[in-house]
């Protein structure tokens, strides 16, 4: 990237793939978490943010939601909810953190695991993601913030969530570009936003607000 390069808003189209893997209890869940693709781990820790963008998810990831709703394992669920997704720079690390929490819980349970009721099994999915230019391009920083209201949720989601963790980049794409364009303070301010604590609409508004404050 050079310091004149425009920001090309990409968008992500996801086709959800069903893996056919299902878990009835924590042992089975753990086995699958160890074996599934990184795409599946990403899907189950991030899907809620895109699908229910108007409502802050009750559970930050599907594993936590299932532990509570299907297994009534509230303590485990709380620990899984408390995983700070921003603390990880790769899905491998995130997967290990989830595994550690479940293994510790199982060790404490001393072999007592319960099956969920039939019909409440955990089904592992993953996504096949097609990333392509959305058609929105920003030539400079004012353009960038002017474009922000026109950018779709899917695009916002890609640049903020997917690029950082699934493509293992050190920051979100917006902050990376703003740094190159000589706006390190703005880049840092956007990097400090925690997208996991807000809806996509709130994230968009927060970014626009930071742009307005800067000038």
């Amino acid at each position: 990237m050079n310091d004149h390069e425009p920001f090309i808003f990409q968008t992500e189209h996801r086709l959800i793939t069903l893996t056919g893997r299902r878990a009835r209890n924590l042992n089975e869940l753990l086995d699958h978490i160890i074996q599934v693709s990184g795409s599946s781990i990403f899907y189950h820790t991030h899907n809620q943010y895109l699908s229910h963008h108007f409502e802050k998810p009750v559970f930050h990831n599907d594993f936590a939601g299932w532990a509570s709703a299907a297994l009534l394992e509230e303590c485990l669920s709380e620990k899984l909810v408390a995983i700070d997704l921003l603390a990880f720079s790769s899905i491998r690390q995130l997967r290990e953190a989830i595994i550690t929490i479940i293994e510790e819980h199982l060790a404490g349970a001393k072999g007592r695991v319960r099956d969920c009721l039939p019909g409440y099994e955990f089904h592992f999915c993953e996504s096949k993601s097609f990333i392509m230019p959305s058609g929105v391009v920003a030539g400079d920083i004012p353009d960038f913030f002017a474009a922000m209201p026109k950018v779709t949720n899917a695009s916002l989601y890609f640049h903020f969530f997917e690029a950082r963790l699934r493509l293992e980049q050190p920051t979100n794409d917006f902050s990376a570009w703003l740094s190159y364009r000589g706006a390190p303070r703005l880049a840092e301010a956007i990097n400090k936003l925690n997208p996991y604590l807000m809806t996509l609409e709130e994230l968009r508004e927060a970014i626009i607000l930071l742009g307005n404050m800067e000038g």
Partner: protein
Amino acid sequence: MPLTLRDYEKVVGPEVIEEIRTLARHVRHKSLRNINSTPVGGGVAEILTRLVPLLHELEINAFWDVIKGDDAFYGVTKAFHNALHGKKEKITEEMLDIYRENTAMNLKDMDLTGDAIIVHDPQPAGLVLRRPQTAAPWVWRCHIDVSNPDPLVWNFLKPYVDKYDATVFSMPDFAQQLSAPQFMIAPSIDPLSDKNKELEPDYILKVLEEHGLDPERPVLTQISRFDRLKDPLGVISAYRLVKKNRDCQLLLAGGGANDDPEGELVLKEVEEAASNDPDIHVALLPPFSDLEINALVRGSTIVFQKSIREGFGLTVTEALWKGKPVIGGAVGGIKLQIMNGITGFLVHSPEGAANRALELLSSPDLREKLGENGRRHVKQNFLITRHLKDYMLLMLAFSYPKQRIVRMSAA
């Protein structure tokens, strides 16, 4: 005038339509053949009616063909449908022969060319026997809840399913142990169709009155085919429990489908159960009653969809889109649509449905909040524009079979 993508800009925003056009450039001029069993009635026909013209607008050569079948064949496939939903059905060798013979007859007559072929549900599934003579990928698009299928029927169909290049299900719960890729595509509704578009309040009032409903009193409604799996008798039980505490009316309305010979029988049972209560209104609606259905839902206070089994439950989507609080059975695709307590309520019994209806009848704020969330949920996830995108992605997926992340440049 047929609807165009520009018409949808007002609903989903121009940016979403622009993304669709961008995506379409990657698959334009390809042909996509859809095959199902009925041109009218049922969710599949409704979806294809809308999707095919929009695909044409995007310069995708979309075809929609319907297989032929007599009453005996549709009797068999209805039994298959019920059995795949987990209901006990008597399936005889003769019935399997009827299916095989009908498949052979259709194979003689049908044009099965195209760059991708999507076969909907079990009725035409056997056409895949032609797969070896074509170069296109074949997709079996199953709209049915097959989470707990009758093994006899599933084992009969599985050799056909195994011949497909991919399958598509509506819910993660429906995934099977299959060697080919399985995708999830949720169905969708068309916000601009007669069944879903905005209506004048006067028209809504007129339709309610035509059905003998009093607009001044709460109306509880279930719009569904008369089918045991939709539990209309359970809805009547729930209504009776509500009625003990709150004045209300019940409307059970639905159409028939060409491929559903059981409907008449169930309608009769429902009419008998309702015969001693003037506040229960049962209406068998003829085909092309979409505007009327739209008005009936918009004029309702609460919408039920108390299914016992459900593929997806488009009637739930339609009611959520109209901002109605929905009480749904916690089965199939209803669980995808109703986030319990956020976009509606999920229940497991007539008693549960009655409890939630009483709660909603006593709180207009709660009705409004659930309705608003429901509409936003549908806008993001279950409109035809998303479905259109998924079909194009499905076409693209076969060009990148191994990759989980596909980076594409502008086309």
